[in-house]
């Protein structure tokens, strides 16, 4: 209970730090919104034959929610924790009575709150500007998918810090990991017609599975609760692997 209060204390100051950093706010929060606006404005009214002739605007909302969640958790945590590590902020915290798990919980809390906010804003804008249906019967699927996806990509972001050598390398390495995967996972345009081998490559990684799970959860025509067990299992497996790496190899002192 005491630790929970301490984690909340840490979270409050992490929130201040997050929202006061213009670069972080732009790349994490503003960019997914800008992407939604651009893609839906250009392609929104086209129909997607491979998916029962739905409008592309309906396709883009869950896709960009996927990007928003990954950006708020995986990208944000990998970059900020590396910076804190290399600037000896983590080392300093390690010298205080704060338990490691409490400090990390504060960081994850910020990632989760930002991710949640992005989901709400992206879905809301999709509804208001482009008339995309809100999930109804599939709400359990939306929530379960976001929880599993958010947790897994937090773990993977913390795991990624273990191979990032310097502060300057953090944004480069993190974006080099996610950007190509966004493209081949159908975030920016549908890949249903892409060559089989490319889809096979994409299938190895978790992003396409989170996107597909969210697509079903957001699909107005879906039967049942909108839970994609297979896709979610793969996302969760990646998350668990990330957790093992993070717990085993996370460093509190600079690698320099």
């Amino acid at each position, binding site marked *: 209970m005491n630790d929970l209060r*301490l984690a909340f*204390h*840490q979270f409050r*100051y992490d929130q*201040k*730090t997050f929202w*006061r*950093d213009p670069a972080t706010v732009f790349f994490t929060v503003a960019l997914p919104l800008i992407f939604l606006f651009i893609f839906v404005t250009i392609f929104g009214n086209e129909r997607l034959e491979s998916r029962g002739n739905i409008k592309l605007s309906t396709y883009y909302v869950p896709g960009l929610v996927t990007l928003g969640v990954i950006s708020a958790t995986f990208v944000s945590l990998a970059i900020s924790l590396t910076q*804190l590590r290399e*600037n*000896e*902020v983590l*080392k*300093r915290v*390690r*010298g*205080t*009575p*704060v*338990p490691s798990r409490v400090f990390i919980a504060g960081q994850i809390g910020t990632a989760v709150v930002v991710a949640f906010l992005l989901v709400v804003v992206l879905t809301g804008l999709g509804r208001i500007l482009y008339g995309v249906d809100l999930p109804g019967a599939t709400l359990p699927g939306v929530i379960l998918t976001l929880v599993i996806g958010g947790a897994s990509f937090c773990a993977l972001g913390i795991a990624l810090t273990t191979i990032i050598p310097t502060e300057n390398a953090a944004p480069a390495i993190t974006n080099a990991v996610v950007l190509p995967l966004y493209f081949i996972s159908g975030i920016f345009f549908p890949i249903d017609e892409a060559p089989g081998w490319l889809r096979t490559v994409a299938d190895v990684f978790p992003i396409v599975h989170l996107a597909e799970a969210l697509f079903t959860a957001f699909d107005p025509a879906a039967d049942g609760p909108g839970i994609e067990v297979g896709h979610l299992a793969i996302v969760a497996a990646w998350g668990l692997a990330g957790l093992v790496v993070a717990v085993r190899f996370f460093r509190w*002192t600079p690698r320099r």
Partner: protein
Amino acid sequence: MRAGEIFAFLGPNGAGKTTTVEILEGYRDRDAGEVSVLGVDPAAPTRAWRERIGIVLQSGKLRPHLTVRESVELFAGYYPAPRPVDETIELVGLTEQRDSRTERLSGGQQRRLDVALALIGDPELLFLDEPTTGFDPSARRNAWSLIAGLRQLGKTVFLTTHYMDEAQELADRVAIIAAGQIVAEGAPSELGGRGAAPCEIRFRLPEGAQADDLPLQVAVTDGRALLRTHDPIPALNALTSWALAQGVDLPGLEVERPSLEDVYLDLTEARP
């Protein structure tokens, strides 16, 4: 170390100061031997032990985008019985900057905020790793008065430094480390046998006087007299009484002990 003292760990760069202090702080594992800090082995640091120590690292940035006050508040929340936030900010002289973001502080101000963050938990023992390296002279003076003030708060301070004057100014006791070995330990005035070393009294022989005229046995070369003694007061008394009685001067009279610098260079340079 004793409670309530300022203990300086003095040595050249690369001598092992930071390695030692990081073992004491619980950051680094030791290869061998036993270590006890406040009765706890720092290799197995407990939360209760961390509440009793404060650490100022040698380098490292502050959390960006937070103000001085917010940074101190954040750390205050880590401890069960923190010191008052504003009072601690005032203690390190940052009251005027308390609403400034940490990234706008000067180097000296950032180090003072470091000290505030280490003090906020009201620790018994404070580690300061080279607190004034890279400071200009006036910033060093300010830092020194801040550190000397910690003694009034009843804190025990473990300080590492490669400045002899810093150790001399601040420390109750000094240990000199060279190439990983402690080569001398004691009060700054006694260090390296300084207290036991003979005093040197020098002067020029007065005009017309011979060495044999003097009341004491003195070595004279080229009219320059040199007297080494463990009892400078009677020797000086004898010499000056003689000079007064004779109505002569003792030109260029000097009394000298080996300086801390001599001792330090002697001890650290003789090592491989």
